[in-house]
Structure formats: C-alpha cells, structure tokens
C-alpha cells in the first residue's frame, strides 16, 4: 500500500493528534461521561489506522515503534495487578478505591484505581486491534 498522497499525509499528521487527544479525553471521561477504556482504545486504534492509510506500514512502524503484542500483554498485566492489588490490603479481589487529591497544575481531582484497571483495558484494546491489523497488513 505505497501511497504518496501529500494532502492526505499532511492532514492525517494533524488529524492523528486531534483524534488521539479525543481518545485520551474519552478515556479519562469514562467514569463520569460516556467513554472509557474500550472506546478510547478503539478511537486510538482508529487514529493509527488512519496513519496506516496515509503512509505505509513500514513508515508507521518507524513513526510508532511499538510491538503491539507487548502493549496487549502490559495492558492485561496492569488490569490483573490492579484487581489483585486489593488482596494486599486484605479486601476481596477487585475491590476498587478512590480518593481526592490536590495535584499541581490540575488542581483538585479524584484519583481512582478503577481508572488504572481501565488503562489496562485501553492498552489491551489498542494492542489487540493493532496486532490484528498489522499482521494482516504485513502478510503477503
């Protein structure tokens, strides 16, 4: 899929970051508004797919040098560790907790272990989607 569409390539560079920002927004919104790890991950994957359409697979793998299998594995690990972490505090598996913190720059905010679990979901979704697309795209 060699392409040299200049307009598409230029716009996609900008649009990619817009979509990525939207994805991150969706991810963090998840707990309060529609959104979350699933949608966030899928939108991120969509952004990368757009990149793939504009450039070819080799260029994208140089631009985004991730091994998506690792992304999947790390995501799964984060989710399981978040769930298992509660055992350390002698509460049942999968007990979440949250609290309000005052963070510099951001201000008063609540931090939630559920968000950590959702981060795992996000990474798995991105990882799996991209693994699938990349392997199919690479195979000749």
């Amino acid at each position, binding site marked *: 899929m060699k392409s040299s569409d200049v307009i598409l390539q230029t716009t996609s560079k900008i649009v990619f970051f817009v979509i990525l920002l939207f994805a991150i927004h969706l991810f963090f919104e*998840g707990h*309060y508004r529609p959104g979350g790890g699933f949608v966030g991950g899928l939108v991120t994957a969509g952004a990368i797919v757009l990149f793939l359409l504009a450039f070819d697979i080799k260029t994208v793998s140089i631009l985004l040098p991730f091994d998506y299998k690792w992304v*999947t594995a790390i*995501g799964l690990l984060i989710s399981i560790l978040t769930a298992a972490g509660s055992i350390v505090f002698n509460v049942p598996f999968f007990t979440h907790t949250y609290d309000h913190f005052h963070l510099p720059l951001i201000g008063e905010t609540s931090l939630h272990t559920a968000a950590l*679990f959702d981060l795992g979901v996000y990474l798995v*979704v991105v990882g799996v989607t991209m693994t699938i697309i990349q392997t199919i795209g690479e195979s000749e």
Partner: protein
Amino acid sequence: MSLLHIAILSPFIFAIFIPFFYKGFKSIHTGWFTLILPIVLFLYFLQFLPKVGGGSSVIETISWIPSLNIDFTVKVDGLSLLFALLITGIGSLVTLYSIYYLSKEKEQLNTFYVYLLLFMGAMLGVVLSDNLIVLYTFWEFTSFSSFFLIGYWFDREKSRYGAQKSMLITVFGGLSLLGGIILLYIMTGTFRISEMLANVDAIVNHALFIPAMIFILLGAFTKSAQFPFHIWLPDAMEAPTPVSAYLHSATMVKAGIYLVARVSPIFALDQSGLWIWLVGGIGIITLFWGSFNAIKQTDLKAILAFSTISQLGLIMSLLGVGAAALHYDYLDDNIFMVAIIAAVFHLINHATFKGSLFMVVGIIDHETGTRDIRRLGGLMQIMPITFTIAFIGAFSMAGIPPFNGFLSKEMFFTGMVRVLQMDIFHLETLGFLFPLIAWVASVFTFVYSMIVVWKTFAGKYQPDKLSKKAHEAPLGMLISPVILVSLVIIFGLFPNLLSDTIIAPAAQSIMPQFIFDDIHISHWHGWKSPELYMTIGVIVIGALLYLTAAKWKRVYRLFPEKLTFNKLYDALLPSLETGSNLFIRSHMTGFLRSYLAYIFIFFIGILGYTIWSKDAFTINRANTAEIGIYEIVLALLIVIGCVTIIFAKSRLTSIIALGAVGYTVSLFFVIFRAPDLALTQLVIETISVALFLLAFYHLPKKFRHEESRRFKLNNALISIAVGVIVALIAISSYSTKLFDSISKYYVEHTYDPAGGENMVNVILVDFRGFDTLFEISVLSIAGLGIYGLIKLRMTRRKEG
C-alpha cells in the same frame, strides 16, 4: 490429610519424580529409586497388624465433595490390611525383580515405573477406601494403568490386542460396578460401606437389592477374570513378566475378590440364595474351566494364566459357599465358617506360589529365549536354583505337603465337603456338585503343575531349539522368587503364624457377624477325614493322567474353536466398530452446513416446543415506548441492508451493506439512550470495515457459489423459522417480568461508594470487573491466535 491418605497418594506423587530421576541418573537403574517406596509402605502397613488384631479398624477422613456425600475416607481393617500388605510386599519384590529383568539400556524405564507406581497407588486406593465412589475412582485407575502396563511393549501387535481386551472387559465391569454403587446409594443414602453395614436390613429387603448385587458382581467377575469374562487374562500375558507376576497373581485380579469379600456382609444375607449360587457357582465353574484349559497350553505363561483363572475361581467359590454360614444360627462354632478362612488363607498362599512361578517363567524366558514347553526341557542341571524354586511353587500349587498350598487346598476340600450338610437354597439336592467339581478341578491342577515343572526341567535338553545358551539366572533375579518360596515353606510348616495375626482379622471383616478367634490350622485331620482321601486321590489320579496325557489330550479337539468366547469377542469388536462408524457417518457428514442445520433445527424445535407447551408467549403493550419517524426509517434501513447482503453478488456490496446495518444499529443505540454503545459501535464498525477491506486483499473475489433452488428453499425455511422464534422470544421476554431487575443496585451505588457517574462504565470496570477482565483476556487470545495463524506459517516456510 492423615498419614494414611499420604500413603495412598504417595505412589502418585512419587511417580512425578521418576522421569526426572531417569533423566538425571542414567547410570543407575530407575528401579532402585522406585524400590524405596513399596518397602517403606510395606513397613508402614506392617505396624497396623496389632491395631486391627481384635477386629477393630482405623478410620481417617478428609472431605472431598461433601455436597455429594463423597469423602475420601480411608479405613484399615483386617481385609484392607491384608491386601495392602500384599500390594506393597509383592510390589517390592516385583520391583526388585524387574531391575534385573528389564535392561536399562533397551527399555523405556521411566514410563514403566511411572505406570507401575500409578497402578500401586490405585490398588492401595481400592482396598483402603471406605467410600464406594472413591473406591470406584481408584478401580478405574487400576483398569487403565494396567492397560498401559500390558501394552508396555506397544510395538507388538499382540500386546496392543491384549491391552485393549483387558481394558474393554474391565472397564465394562467398572461401569457396571458404578451402577451397583449408585443403586446402593439409592437404597441407603450413603456411599460409605461402613454406614451401609449399619443398616443392612433396609438393603436386604429393598426391591433394588438383586439388581445391585448383579451389577456389583459383574464388576468383580470381570476384574477377577471369572468365567466367561476370563478371556482377557491369557491375552494380558503379553505384558512384561514382572507385570504379570504383580498384576495377574497378587493384585489386580484379586481386586474382584476383594470387592466380593468387602460387600459380603451385605449381600451374603440375601434370602433367595442367589449370592451363594452366583459367587459359588461361577467360582467353581471358573476353577474347573481354568484348570482344564491350562493343560492344553504350551506356553508356560499361558498355563500360569489359566491356572490363575482357576485359582481365582477357587477363592471366589469359597467366598460364595462361606456365605451360607450366615443362614445358620449357631454363631460360635459354625462349621461353614471354614470356607471364609480358607479363602483368606488361599489368597495369601496363591500370591506367594504364583508370584514365584511367574518369576521363574520370566527367568526361563530371559535365559533361554522361549517359554514354549515343546522346546524346553532338561534345565534341571543347568538352572538348579530356578528348578528348586519352580518345584516348590508348583508342588504347593498342586496341593502337596508340606507346602502352604496343601493346607489351603485341604481347607478348601473341607469347605466344599461341608456343602453336603447344607439344606438351604436347593443345596441339599445340587450341593454335591461343589465337592465333585472341586475335586476334578484339583486333579487337573495337579496335572498342569506337574507340566510346569517336569516339562521344563526334566527330559532332554534341546540347545538347538533355544535362541540363547541357557544358564542360571543372575543372583539379583533370584532374590525375589527365593523370598517367595521361603514363605511358601514357612507358611506351610507354621501356618499358625498367620492365623491370628492376619487371617482372623481379615475373615472378621468379611463376616463381621461372627467371631473369628482361636483359628488353628492343622496338617493332620485324622484317618477318618474325607480330605485326606481326596488329596490322595488327587495325587494318584493326577499322576496317572499326567503320565498318559498324550493319549487323552484328544479330548480338547471336542471343543470347537469357533464357539469360544474369544471368537465371540473377536467377532463382536469389529462389528461394533463398523456399526458405530456407519451410525456416525449417517449424520456426521463433515459438511459444516449439516451441523449448523442440526443446531438451528434443534433450536427451533426446543424453543418452539417450550413456548407452545408452557404457553409462554405474551404481549404486554402497556409499557411500550412510542414509535417515532426516526425509528421507522432506521428499521427500514436495517431491512434493506439485510436484503442487500443476501442478494449481493459482489463482496464489496455486502460489506458496505453490513457496515450500513452496523451504523444503523449504533443510531438505534443513540435513540435508546445508550451513548456508550453508540460510540463503541461507531468506531468498531469503522475499524471492522477497514479490517474486511484489508482481508479482502487475500480472499477470493467471489462472494457466493452456485446453489440449487431446493438448497435455497430449505435454508430459507430454516432461517425464517429461526427469525420467528427469536422475535417471539423478544416480545415475550419484554412482556413478562418475573423478577425485578438486578441493576437497581448498580444504579444506586454508582456515585457512592463506587465514585463514578457513568453507570455503564462503572459496571464494566468495578461492579462487574470480572466480566471485563475475562473479556480482555479473550480479546488478547484472539489477537494472539490471529498473529499465530499468520506468522507461524511464515517462519515454517522460511525453514522449509
């Protein structure tokens, strides 16, 4: 978990380490490592001897599946202990013997000892479990570990045949045993034997009593190679000789005996006499048939196989006849009790002399290269020690003094002669058959015992017919049989060493209704005893028959080969295979479409029937949402999409139509107040279309194949029916609300304590986090699967 449980499970645990030892210490024979366990276990079980002396028992329980009344209860009483000692004692000797029998260079020792240990553990489990389900589990374990042992030389056609045969027959019996156990459970509500004994009366008068008895006996008879299920045992002789010595003399075949003895306290009370006639009758027929057939064999191991069948029949018949004792009142001096004592005593004796004989045959096979008595002969001078062992073992088997076989054979005669004094269950008319057949079978026993010794060791030495130059066996190989024959002599001279220590407790567990103490086994019963003349008759007639064997052996030709049970088995097996093959082929066509059609037709049938029979279809229009113009447009879009896909000729059209349906569904989600779903569906649909397009690069251009009109019509009928059923379910499930929605909890707790506002997301990551965790696991697996499907082939191509 008590020490007893550990003792039963230790062979299984030990078996795990065998392969590592085999790999790690190539220079040491794996048998030495294995040997430790049976010896330790034997010593461990020895210390129970004083504990079970007075008929008491040791019970340990750990719960396994308490909801089903299944606990791993271990009970050590006289009978269990006797068997446990046999299993570990003979097990030690056999392991020692196998070290010299199996060469460490040529054989796969790791698998052999793993199987052997599995078998040992399973046997211990059978004899020590008090819970019948646990017993059954171990019982099946013995079946398949013996399958592996018999088929140990799996490259031989005959080994595989023998292994399969024993497996099929014993597993058939095992299933029947399970049936019997379940019937017993229905009658008593417990799986524990000791609890069943507590309410024997309820069982005896129950309608299921006779079926349960027959089922359990089927299990016991198949395992103990009783007529007509004996056919597997001669074929099982393809196993390495240590295995035969272990499984087919001392342990596995005696599991059936154990079972009969174990359930005797329940079933011997049978008021119809069926138990006595079945156990005693089948036993005595087996005794006769086995000994009669042993004579015509030419393979030493085959002779021993038939001899084992016959001896098992002997013990079985004693258990059957002994059951009559319960039907007489005089409890302390009941003359029929002797049969039970004889059974226990002969069980021990048989293990000693038959074990040693099997080992002798193994030595002969090992040192001369053949087991065929037509090629053997004159080995007396070459293998003097082996000859001595064989002589003692065979003479004990023949029932000649002063060996232990003589004592138990005499007691056997006593038991059988006393049948003449019984006046119940038609024994007064037909009972004479028992001593008669017993005596005739003993004559045959004498004859084949002589054949084993003299045809092998006397006569002319024929070195040209042997593949190896015969010489005496190495010392290590002789140790185990020497120990066994020393026991033959010791038990023969001092039988009362055993009587109070183990025979009495064991007999006590078989017949807890009686008191077995002060058992005295004597060699001499006086000039007037019929046993004396029976023994003399056996020796005289037996010797005559042995000497004139060549003349009367023609008798065997009277039995046509075609009518044997073996032929029946051989004929039944292929027809069973072809029959089931035909049956499977008739509906398992290999077409995915057929299978899907079955699934859909069943779906329609079952759900349609349920809706109709339960009158489940209801429409409740009270609470439905109103229909707007948007919804109608969207519905039409979906319908158009579906129709387009069905009639589309190009794949691109169909994918675009599928995408359209997907986007419409996400619009529905918007209307139905599900923003999360709408978002996800939108993005997924986009990525899916990209994925389809990517995959199209590799896929055929054609979207459909030629299909006949009939094919389409059938499919259309099935699919319309599925659609209607699902629509009916959708309407009814909305209209009937049997329960309140469980989501009320989620709605109320989203903000406090879960700390979120988007209920769907909170459910996903918090309330039902497990679902999500498994979901992302599945997703990862799918991703890895795709990666593997594509990448692995590439590396293979590169290598190729």
